[in-house]
């Protein structure tokens, strides 16, 4: 089952690599192997045989989700820290798969987000053809990942570009209105060019999961509703001065969160009604953090906050008659 979830992300990973280059490949390779290695280490320490547990592919999925969430070029020590937090702290400390209170990949992401803000906001822009960006060669990219320093003559400022979410945030901060900000050539139909294509393929993978019955519709629909409803209302209220629903859905981790992250069966609410509350909460918190917070994206924090609320949600959403069962 988890293997199929991983496979559903492969088309999106290929498109991601097409737009963003080798960094995605580095990320996927480092994250998956590190997560598997940390899982094996933890299991060995617990005197369990690692192989049967590793065969459930859950560590692979955590690694893959982290690879999607982290910036495409990231020094290896940051990536390894994220993997260690995800597997050792969020998963194995709680007793391994099936017992984690928080989504492991998001714990890893948030831990490095608050610890390495500069590295975590260094994004290379997507290949777009008509926009001329400085693009380091393969070996220089690899050197950066291994050492954390761009080799001469590249500098951080020359190489990195603001993501669409960053651009909107700094534009709004400088009292521009969204309609003006959108005229920048990096924006496409809804989100950033390139970015929205990755979103399309993630949604395609999500559609496959729904079709195969691997996830229920409640969480993706309610996460999207949690983003779309407030974003539309807010945008209408100020006549387009802030981003509307289309931009929010196709930017950042909204689609990845709705289909692949929030739907983690262990850390999500377990009853249909509770799932609707859980998903809507994630969408709403993520939109709030994007709109008023200091971080450009809020999906990861929103997932962790709603994970905290899951036992409470489960308690109140259980079918009648089992509400007080131990």
């Amino acid at each position, binding site marked *: 089952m988890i293997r199929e979830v991983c496979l559903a992300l492969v088309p999106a990973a290929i498109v991601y690599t097409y737009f963003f280059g080798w960094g995605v490949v580095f990320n996927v390779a480092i994250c998956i192997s590190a997560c598997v290695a940390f899982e094996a280490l933890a299991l060995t*320490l617990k005197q369990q045989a690692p192989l049967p547990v590793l065969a459930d592919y859950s560590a692979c999925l955590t690694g893959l989700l982290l690879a999607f969430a982290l910036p495409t070029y990231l020094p290896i020590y940051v990536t390894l820290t994220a993997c260690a937090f995800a597997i050792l702290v969020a998963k194995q400390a709680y007793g391994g798969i099936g017992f984690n*209170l928080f989504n492991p990949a998001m714990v890893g992401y948030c831990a490095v987000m608050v610890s390495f803000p500069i590295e975590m906001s260094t994004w290379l822009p997507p290949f777009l053809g008509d926009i001329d960006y400085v693009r380091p060669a393969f070996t220089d990219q690899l050197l950066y990942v291994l050492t954390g320093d761009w080799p001469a003559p590249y500098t951080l400022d020359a190489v990195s570009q603001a993501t669409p979410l960053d651009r909107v945030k700094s534009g709004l901060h400088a009292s521009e209105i969204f309609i003006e900000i959108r005229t920048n050539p990096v924006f496409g139909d809804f989100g950033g060019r390139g970015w929205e294509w990755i979103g399309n393929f993630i949604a395609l993978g999500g559609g496959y999961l729904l079709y195969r019955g691997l996830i229920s519709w409640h969480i993706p629909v309610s996460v999207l509703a949690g983003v779309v409803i407030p974003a539309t209302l807010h945008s209408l209220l100020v006549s387009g001065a802030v981003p509307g629903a289309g931009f929010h859905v196709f930017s950042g981790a909204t689609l990845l969160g709705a289909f692949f992250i929030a739907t983690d069966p262990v850390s999500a609410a377990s009853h249909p009604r509770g799932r609707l509350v859980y998903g809507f909460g994630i969408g709403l918190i993520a939109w709030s953090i994007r709109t008023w917070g200091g971080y450009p994206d809020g999906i990861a924090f929103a997932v962790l906050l709603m994970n905290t609320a899951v036992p409470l949600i489960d308690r109140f959403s259980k079918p009648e008659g089992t509400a007080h069962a131990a």
Partner: protein
Amino acid sequence: MQTWFMTIVSSALINHLVLAHVVRTNPSFDDHQQFAIALRLAATTLIVALASTAANFPVNAWLLAAPDSAFLRTPAAILVIASVVTIVQRFMRSVSVMTNEKSHLLTALLWLNSTVIGIVMIHTPAAARWLDSIWISGAAGAGLGLLTVAFAASHRHIEHDNIPVALRGTAIAFITAGLVSLALLGFTGVVR
């Protein structure tokens, strides 16, 4: 209001510990009872936070208005809170809300003391007006209560045999509280 979140984040660290302590002193509590205690604890937090801020603001603003009296703020706050806690405790006993759990209530109130000191000490000087200070500490108290209840509900998830022996009990409670604080950091910058 930035401090609003700080109070909640820092209090998350002690929430579960105290709750676990309250429950462990009487192992016969089931989930339902524990949840009920958490709800009462949350309600008491809110009441004490509101009442002690309301009482402490005039003390700070008028009684300790002299420029050299800043050093008296902490003792004065402790005095005010201690009185408020005693009054609340008596009131609760008189309406027999907590008859069976007197001893646990005492433990809980001890905890409340320290937290509420935090709320009052942080917010009283920051708020310019009496109503502001009440509103802010009310919000902090409510947030704190919500976390208390959330932690009570999560207790079954962090007390089971699959957790590595070395991490059981207090250690995993601390890890959980730390991760909750991490999640709350997402709100950094919401209030400028």
